[in-house]
């Protein structure tokens, strides 16, 4: 009787949310997976017939009259990987010293500083990106300032380039990189750095042999959770990248809203998901290996 009552309470808690997520979360993912194997209709829409050339067009085995392999899709994948990687790198370079700066503050100031860094995270994404449009435009703040100082004569073309996309993504993902980094930097015992110096290591040696290995888990975690949303991002490239900078996200969006080839878009999305999953598994493995390994 005790058991049955508990089961009822559990079902009452789980029932509605489970049903909701099964229908509206799992359902869409399953249908998308099915869609990626269906035949695109002539005028948009879809025919319920098995079709593998959606993947073939991307990955290389499609060579029928209507469906040809086009290396441009792989190029766009590679370009997305590159832009995401550069975003991770620049966020890391910016956040790493800042993490040290905050970890050495007195606790009261430290909380205030952490608060100050997380606060912009809550500011609307579109507003933050808009700010960078204002800064990077040909008539924008940066060009005005540089021309005003006499450093340049004609406006720099920054907006609608790869650089603008990287700047924008770096800016919006700073909290993603900063928080895991900070967590591992904070755990670093300052005595370790002193000990290393005491044992005759130069600053560079101390950094490479003590600080970097000790904060590696934070770097890895920050890199992964920055890389994933950067890889699939399509807002930043469409606001700051214009038509020239195309990432996977934009390509997928186009299939749905202008090209109207939904099965092909679904196949692209499936490949993006697969990439993300592989990355997460790798990170999980690395983290586990690092934990399981005895410290030396």
């Amino acid at each position, binding site marked *: *009787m*005790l*058991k049955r*009552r508990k089961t009822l309470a559990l079902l009452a808690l789980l029932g509605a949310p489970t049903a909701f997520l099964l229908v509206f979360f799992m359902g869409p993912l399953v249908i998308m997976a099915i869609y990626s194997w269906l035949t695109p209709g002539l005028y948009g829409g879809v025919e319920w017939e098995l079709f593998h050339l959606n993947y073939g067009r991307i990955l290389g085995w499609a060579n029928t009259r209507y469906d040809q392999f086009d290396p441009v899709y792989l190029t766009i994948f590679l370009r997305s990987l590159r832009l995401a990687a550069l975003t991770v790198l620049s966020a890391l370079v910016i956040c790493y010293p800042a993490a040290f700066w905050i970890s050495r503050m007195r606790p009261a100031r430290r909380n205030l500083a952490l608060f100050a860094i997380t606060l912009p995270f809550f500011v609307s994404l579109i507003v933050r990106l808009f700010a960078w449009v204002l800064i990077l435009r040909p008539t924008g703040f940066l060009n005005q300032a540089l021309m005003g100082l006499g450093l340049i004569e004609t406006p720099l073309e920054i907006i609608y380039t790869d650089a603008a996309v990287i700047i924008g993504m770096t800016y919006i993902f700073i909290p993603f990189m900063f928080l895991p980094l900070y967590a591992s930097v904070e755990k670093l015992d300052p005595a370790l750095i002193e000990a290393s110096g005491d044992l005759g290591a130069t600053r560079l040696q101390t950094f490479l042999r003590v600080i970097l290995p000790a904060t590696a888990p934070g770097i890895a975690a920050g890199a992964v959770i920055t890389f994933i949303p950067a890889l699939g991002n399509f807002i930043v490239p469409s606001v700051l990248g214009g038509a020239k900078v195309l990432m996977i996200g934009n390509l997928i969006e186009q299939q749905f809203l202008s090209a109207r080839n939904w099965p092909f878009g679904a196949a692209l999305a499936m490949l993006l998901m697969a990439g993300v999953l592989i990355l997460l598994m790798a990170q999980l493995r690395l983290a586990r290996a690092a934990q399981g390994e005895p410290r030396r």
Partner: protein
Amino acid sequence: MPRLLEIHKASKAFHSPEGGTITALDEVSLSLSSAEFLTLLGPSGCGKTTLLRAISGFEPLDRGQITIDGQEMTDRPAHRRPVNTVFQRYALFPHLTVGRNVSYALEIAGTPKAEIRTRVGEMLDLVGLAGLGQRGISQLSGGQQQRVALARALVARPKLLLLDEPLSALDKNLRRQMQLELKRLQEELQIGFVFVTHDQEEALTMSDRIAVLAQGQIQQLGTPEDLYRHPANRFTAEFLGESNLLPVALHDGAAILADGQRVPASGRGTSTLMIRPEMLGTAPVADGLTFAGTIRERFYSGTSNLLIVETQAFGMLQALLRADAPIAVPGSPVTLYAGRADLHIIPGGAT
């Protein structure tokens, strides 16, 4: 008239993380008369906490029965059982004041406001916290929190109070004081206490009866004196107090020690002879046992001297002597005596 608490063949097994099962309770039977102070004593993992949680209703039994005051409890959820618990780390509600913690059970029961106020006041008086009703829990010391936990558990006037190692978080002096106070409370209120502890000294000081548990079974149940003087098995002998355990052969109405000395005893086979360290003395006793040896170490504690004496036949023996007894220095020979009345043959095999 029914007993206050009756436990009949209670059994409970847990799944271990490795996939096996751990027997926490193995057909434990026990009963308690009203106004009795019963202690469940044993090492960690012996089943004492599981037994307590089975009584309070947090741990359903696999088999067996529990009745309280003649009423069947086995399938009753915790909130419908007429017992209250003092938890190990008190489990005081952090968002409520001292007063609201104490009044909790009465509020739940729908007691009229005026009555709640008087009874909470009485309870705070009883545990020595008069006037602290408005305080927050975090403003109290460990000892005060302990008293709030007691008041909270007693306010509904349960016939049976369960205490799960309530003193383990206190420092030694406070602990001693609370032991005496708990005993006083129990006698004053005339209700049943089931007290769980792994501290044998605590158990001996407070209890009317002690149940020694190990491996999910009751090893022995009896008064503190009974358990101390006549342990039923080797486990109880070793767990409660210090002891010298000597192997003996039972033969022809006597127990024969390794060096040939004899004491009258019944039975056959091998067994163990227990001599408590304080029963060994340097003054000769007629009609007892004699152990000659060499003093190896001596520990002075103010009230007593503990000697570690090496004997040829039995290895090291411990003897606890009065501090003023004349003692030779380590390395010198000594002869120890034990009176026959102070010996105890542990029943059963010599395991």
